[in-house]
């Protein structure tokens, strides 16, 4: 009976793993994979092209993964390059791969999968009615799509399979679904999709499915026709039926159904059985093929430039009337911005976050009262360009600093700034602006695969 051994180097490229763990897991393995992306840290990375992890940390992890794959003659698949999986993220990570090959004197066929889409292409697909909204999706317009800063499509396993079929050993993809890189090889070797996707979902966070993950590390699974056995290579970690079952909860809105490009993984009837004190066998996972193939799209749109002010407020007379104080200072700020910068209040945004009252939960805070002896204040300003945002911030903090209250006569200083300058330019601000799937007939039509011999 065919079995496939899948290895996850770690949950996120750049967070590290023990070399011994990957070495132990790689013995007899069919492939190594590692995800490098997430939308968790927000839209900045997709919009700007920046990467969350330090380049040195990514290089350290990648070099150990590639060296291990080359040593064992097996593929290594890396998904969602550079946090957001756009073209700059892919190119930067591909350069790191080439650097590693040069420095370690390694030679391998290397494929990149570019999943960035031009806004015009997406706008045309939208006009043809090929974009379908997911729950809570924003309204789209033709002009809105065409002005998006960056759009990526989330690859399924098919582009990875195509790259491997073309002869690639190391495959680096732009945005791809977390599970896709773990499904490609098992699917090519005849493992049922239900088994492959469930194993992929458990593996993609590395050692996170262990009972107590002490630090980021590798994870391994052996897949067959009926299920898979998951067992951490690190002897300090153990999987239990509960820890593995609980992992399907993580970061999913629905713990039983996982929607993938070509269908849905259904784990509601899955059985989890301990086969040792460290290994769990999972069976009975179902895959329901979808009627059509859809890829999820992600996009970031630029909304302006941000400057923030940080301050503390301690005076009890100010704290007891803080809402009114901010409203009254805000009115003075708006007037001064109009007078000196010529901007109406609808040409910029100014937001006050009061820590110690309701800044963490915003309008959802059930107890929006000041109960302590001090608060932290963030004044968040977004305007059309950085110079304007910075100028508004200067007006905002200086106006507020000396804004009077009726209990005191004479000039007051109401804000305690921990820093000089009191304001910080935070650069361009992006928002996620698409939550749709794109219906495509050919799963490879959303990407460009490039193969080269790297040495």
């Amino acid at each position, binding site marked *: 009976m065919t079995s496939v051994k899948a290895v996850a180097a770690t949950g996120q490229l750049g967070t590290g793993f023990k070399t011994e763990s990957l070495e132990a897991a790689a013995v007899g393995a069919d492939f190594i994979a590692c995800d490098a992306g997430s939308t*968790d840290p927000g839209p900045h990375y997709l919009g700007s092209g920046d990467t969350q992890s330090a380049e040195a940390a990514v290089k350290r992890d990648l070099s150990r993964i590639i060296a291990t794959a080359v040593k064992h003659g097996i593929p290594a698949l890396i998904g969602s390059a550079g946090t957001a999986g756009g073209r700059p993220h892919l190119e930067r990570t591909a350069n790191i791969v080439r650097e590693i090959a040069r420095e370690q004197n390694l030679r391998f066929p290397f494929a990149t999968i570019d999943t960035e889409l031009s806004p015009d292409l997406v706008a045309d697909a939208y006009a043809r009615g090929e974009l379908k909204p997911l729950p809570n999706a924003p309204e789209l317009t033709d002009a809105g799509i065409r002005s998006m800063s960056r759009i990526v499509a989330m690859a399924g396993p098919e582009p990875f399979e195509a790259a491997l079929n073309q002869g690639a050993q190391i495959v680096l993809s732009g945005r791809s679904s977390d599970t896709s890189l773990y499904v490609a090889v098992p699917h090519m070797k005849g493992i049922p999709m239900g088994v492959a996707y469930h194993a992929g979902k458990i593996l993609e966070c590395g050692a996170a499915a262990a009972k107590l993950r002490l630090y980021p590390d590798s994870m391994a699974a052996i897949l067959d026709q009926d299920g898979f056995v998951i067992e951490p290579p690190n002897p300090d970690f153990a999987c239990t*039926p509960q820890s593995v079952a609980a992992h399907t*909860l993580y970061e*999913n*809105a629905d713990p*039983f159904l996982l929607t993938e490009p070509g269908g849905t993984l259904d784990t509601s009837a899955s059985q989890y059985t301990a086969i040792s004190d460290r290994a769990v066998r999972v069976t009975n996972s179902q895959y329901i093929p979808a009627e059509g193939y859809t890829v999820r799209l992600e996009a970031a749109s630029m909304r302006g430039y941000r400057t923030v002010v940080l301050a503390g407020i301690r005076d009890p007379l100010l704290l007891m009337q803080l809402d009114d104080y901010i409203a009254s200072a805000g009115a003075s700020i708006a007037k001064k911005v109009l007078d000196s910068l010529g901007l109406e209040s609808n040409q910029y945004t100014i*937001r006050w976050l009061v820590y110690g009252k309701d800044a963490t939960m915003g309008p959802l805070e059930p107890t929006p009262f000041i109960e302590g002896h001090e608060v932290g204040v963030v004044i968040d300003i977004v305007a059309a360009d950085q110079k304007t945002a910075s100028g508004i911030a200067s007006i905002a903090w200086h106006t507020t600093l000396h804004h009077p209250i009726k209990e005191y006569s004479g000039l007051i200083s109401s804000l305690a700034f921990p820093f000089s300058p009191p304001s910080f330019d935070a650069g361009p601000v992006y928002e996620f602006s698409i939550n749709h799937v794109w219906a495509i007939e050919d799963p490879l039509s959303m990407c460009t695969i490039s193969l080269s011999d790297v040495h």
Partner: protein
Amino acid sequence: MTELWEVAKLIRSKNAGPWELTIDIMFGNQQDYDRVAASNIANPDTYAGIYHLPSSDIRVFKHEMALALKVSLPRPTPAGGLQETDVFGGQFGSPLVHLEIEGENVLQGQSS
């Protein structure tokens, strides 16, 4: 009265993608799970007031194998947007900590 934190071993809020929040309430044993799964904590109405949403927008899942309840709801704003207060969505579960567990016996045997 027992509060949720006294029974749960983890109350964890997290983004489920940029558009949804999901809160996992996990238990250390079957007895604790059974008790809470049969209470107001497994009823979407409990969360409607807390999150200013209609009950129909709130999904509560019972995952017995994982000894966990899961509450999923739309995010108040897409993650990292201009009105964001919590990019990772990690603190949105905090109002649940002091929730009182009610109706364990009344709701016993009913599905929610």
